[in-house]
């Protein structure tokens, strides 16, 4: 029994870990700004694309580091240019701005690549084939969940035990009051974007090492699924997003394994609808207390 299902579970855990790294960006930005950052999936795609270009001139480790820096710079620039001027505007405007940025990034990538799929560079040790029980898979499948859990642990520690973490929690609780208390809101938001985009860049290295084609639309589907994961776990909650991402990744692959390949994506989105109807705050979502 396990013999048959092992390859699907492994694939699910791997892709779940990759979704989790993207989902953290969604959930943190939502927690602090109450904004669904639609451009996040495209930052992820661009990190992959930049890697393709960097690896041609630079050694592997340098490129990986530069890719992470690039994603951080791109994310914070988007925040400065497209979201910050709209901070006091109605929430709908800032969301539309996010959609605009997403399309801009996609079309710019279309212009640069000419619309053709680029092949992600080989990262030797990540793509090495290994055997686990009955399943043959790539090394990255094993590394992803471990790395994801380590990073999430560090992040939770950062949020719980550092000054900036405390500031983040305060801002997510009450935006205006915390600014009155002397918290530098802009700094907190920038740090949020730095963390979110940095993790998305790491996620892109893992994801594209496994699924090696990048085109301008590559960020759309993982981004959307990570978003569903964030909602499933309770948007605003980091552990929630991670659990949600693993659930979605594993279920998706088990459904494919059961032979219902046609419905694997449908499942993800049905899950979103069900969650929104039954438990709108998600698994670990904060309780919404109405204040009079």
């Amino acid at each position, binding site marked *: 029994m396990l013999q048959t299902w092992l390859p699907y579970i492994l694939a699910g855990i791997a892709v779940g870990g990759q979704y989790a790294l993207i989902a953290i960006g969604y959930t943190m930005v939502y927690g602090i700004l109450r904004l669904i950052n639609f451009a996040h999936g495209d930052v992820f795609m661009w990190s992959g694309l930049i890697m393709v270009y960097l690896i041609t001139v630079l050694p592997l480790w340098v490129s990986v580091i530069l890719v992470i820096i690039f994603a951080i710079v791109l994310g914070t620039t988007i925040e400065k240019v497209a979201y910050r001027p709209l901070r006091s505007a109605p929430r709908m405007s800032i969301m539309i701005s996010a959609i605009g940025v997403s399309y801009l990034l996609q079309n710019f990538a279309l212009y640069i690549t000419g619309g053709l799929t680029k092949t992600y560079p080989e990262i030797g040790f990540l793509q090495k084939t290994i055997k686990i029980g009955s399943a043959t898979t790539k090394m990255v499948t094993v590394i992803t969940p471990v790395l994801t859990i380590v990073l999430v642990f560090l992040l939770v520690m950062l949020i719980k035990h550092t000054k900036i973490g405390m500031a983040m929690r305060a801002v997510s609780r009450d935006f205006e009051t915390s600014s009155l208390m002397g918290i530098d809101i802009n700094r907190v938001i920038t740090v949020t974007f730095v963390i979110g985009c940095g993790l998305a860049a790491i996620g892109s290295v893992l994801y594209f090492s496994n699924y*090696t084609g990048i085109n301008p639309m590559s960020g759309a589907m993982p981004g959307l699924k990570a978003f569903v994961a964030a909602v499933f776990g309770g948007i605003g909650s980091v552990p929630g997003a991670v659990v949600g991402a693993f659930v979605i990744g594993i279920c998706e692959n088990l459904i494919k394994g059961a032979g219902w*390949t046609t419905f694997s994506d449908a499942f993800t989105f049905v899950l979103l609808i069900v969650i929104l109807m039954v438990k709108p705050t998600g698994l670990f979502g904060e309780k919404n207390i109405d204040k009079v």
Partner: protein
Amino acid sequence: MKKILVLALSLVLAMLALAGCGGGGDSGSGGGDTIKIGVFEPASGDNGAGGKQETLGIQYANKMCPTVTIGDKEYNVELAIVDNESDNSKAVTAAQNLVSQNVSIVLGSYGSGVSIAAADVFADAGMPAIGVTCTNPQVTADCEQYFRICFLDPFQGTVLANYAWDSGCKKAYCLSKLGDDYSVGLVNYFVEAFKGLGGEVVEEQFPDKNSDFTSYVANAKNKGCDVFFAPVSTEAAALIIDQAEAQDLGMPILAGDTWDSNVITEAAKGKNVDITVTTFYQEGGNPEFDEGIKAWMEEDSTAMTNNGGNTDLAAVTAMGYDAYFVALEAMKAAGSTDPADILAALPALQVSGLVCGDVSFNETGDANKTEAFVKRCNTETGAWEFVKTQSAE
């Protein structure tokens, strides 16, 4: 300050818009003796790589033979190239664009879905269209205006099924893309023929924008199949090959004409996979053409980039080259540049001396082709090797 900026920006935009109009006007009025051939191909999206290679063949043909003598008058042939973005909804707009540019005939497209989507536009405009490598029967079935120079999927599916059966495969795993006319159609015909021979099949589909093929490869292994049939786009193909290697698929992969591309050979190079495809043309079939187009790609760096960065020939390029000459012959036979006259001349047209074999059309407008080339990927050299020609019987 802000107002000035806004004003300046809108001025710039207005000027750009005007400049755009000016440019369009010029090219329309230039030269009285020009005839336009519409090239309806994808340059982006799922089929962008293949579409570019097919366009390349047409462009090379146009370079070799830039004029045509119709009656006693010599015309310059100009290509009007549009990008249908491999997308059925955008294909309609692209087709309308060609019609409004007053082209005389349309060539394309790579990928059957976009051709089927655009067929209505060509039908309404009375515009003759020649499909180059769209193999789905529906392209020409309901459209009087659509002709094609390649073989069809019922034929190709049968050929592939025969090939699989002859090489000892009893259970086939068939993968197609949800909503994609080409792969769904070809899989259906394959399944029909393979079951007819006594084989067993497992059919699965993957959704649009999917890049995770892990489970599909695992399914094929778990269900004990002995051939993996996946006539999908080259984008998905590269990912499938990658997963097949990662999970040690252990069975041959079989595909249709789309996979005859250097995208595949590059993805498979150095990997432990066994890939066989059916196609229209084998490199070396016409050495003169091969050398000519390769020399051109060496010279022209854009052409080389569009071919995927090297000079390996794809069958679709050869087919594009042929399509251009079929179009010229049709115009000569019609003795006119009017789409209606060309349309009338097409059914009786017979063209020989082409790279991929002679072309004549049957009553639905399909080319009479009875053989396909079978090629196998040599993963050491990263090149296609000819196996045999296979017919449907």
